[in-house]
């Protein structure tokens, strides 16, 4: 089956910033992404877990974007502007996709 080069970008960020991140992505022309819930994690700012959280402010989410390689830089610039002062992490993987016309 024919596949096409793409990049898979995964951004893990605080839940209260999800809207700002996706708005920034939209502005940078990235309109395709998927948001996954996150159950817990650990990093330089310690461990946390979702169970029993009463506060909407304290969770995180993972935003996954599949994107044409040539558009990666504008995506990263947009994402970085939002993520930079915050605690999230950004990773990029080479991928292939079916149906290139969608990306």
């Amino acid at each position, binding site marked *: 089956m024919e596949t096409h080069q793409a990049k898979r970008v995964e951004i893990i960020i*605080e839940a*209260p*910033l999800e*809207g*700002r991140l996706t708005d920034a992505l939209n502005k940078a022309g990235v309109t395709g992404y998927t948001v996954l819930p996150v159950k817990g994690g650990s990093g330089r*700012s*310690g*461990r*946390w*877990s*979702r*169970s*029993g*959280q*009463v*506060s*909407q*402010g*304290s*969770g995180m989410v993972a935003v996954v974007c599949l994107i044409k390689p040539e558009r990666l830089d504008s995506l990263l610039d947009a994402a970085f502007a939002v993520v*930079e*002062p*915050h*605690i999230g992490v950004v990773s990029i993987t080479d991928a292939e996709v079916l149906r290139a016309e969608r990306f």
Partner: protein
Amino acid sequence: MTDILSLAAGNLISPIILSFVLGLAAALARSDLTIPEAVAKGMSIYLLFAIGFKGGAGVAAHGIDGTLVATLFAAAILSFALPFIAYALLGAMTRLSPLDKAAVSAHYGSISIVTFVAATSVLESQGIASEGYMVAAAAIMEAPAILSALWIVARTGGSSRGTVDAGLYREILLNGSIVLLVGSFLIGTITGEEGLATISPFIIAPFQGVLCLFLLDMGLVAGRGLRESRGDVGGGAVAFGMLMPLIGSAFGLAAALVVGLSAGGAALLMTLAASASYIAVPAAMRVALPEAKPSIYLTLSLGVTFPFNLTVGIPLYTALSSAIAGG
């Protein structure tokens, strides 16, 4: 004094407090007892809806009292003012960074709705009436403290790389708990006693029981937070977490006397002023002051001040307000 102590003791062995203690103990002992996030949110929506509706129905029943506007005004002033006091006190008692001090201050100017709910149920159990519109005062006190904290940060030249934009202000003002509290208060006011009658088997009868389970969860969350943040919060900060509510409640009492609230209303305004936010403000701080450490402000608010108010504070405020504003 003996009176206050015996009241406090009576309060301490209520199912509500003991449920909180159970949660706290379970978390500290590292039990895997957890309440699913969705259920915890569902209970908090229930509590907000119920308390707002009851407040509104109360206003509908007793009419709008001349002190309504003055109370709301006083509440807003308290929320604006308390962060400055908290900031100064933190400067004297701790070595926190300016950003951390500002973030903590925002929490103490704002309010904890579950502390408020616990206070209303203590008042009810003692048969002390209070103004229904205190719920509206609670809603009004959620946000102003955040503005004060941001202003402190700007003024003290502390620069945060967080985002303070129109979106943030909208999020703060249209925060889910504010909207739900104000909305259900209005619904209660509009539909009045008749509306209350149709849904009271839902919002009144099981209220105390839901509150128990919710406090069980608060205990679990607070205990887990305490366990994981040892070290970030020093003795000075812990002392602040118990002194600040007392100071806040004193201002609350003064405001209540000026405005002319009943003893019950005064106890609630004291409780509001004494309580510290753990929902709306942390979310705003994540966006606006990302460098401030959640482990500090959440531990103080949830792990120190919340249990302090629940066990010592509320009986104290109730007793004081009865002694001073009552009769």
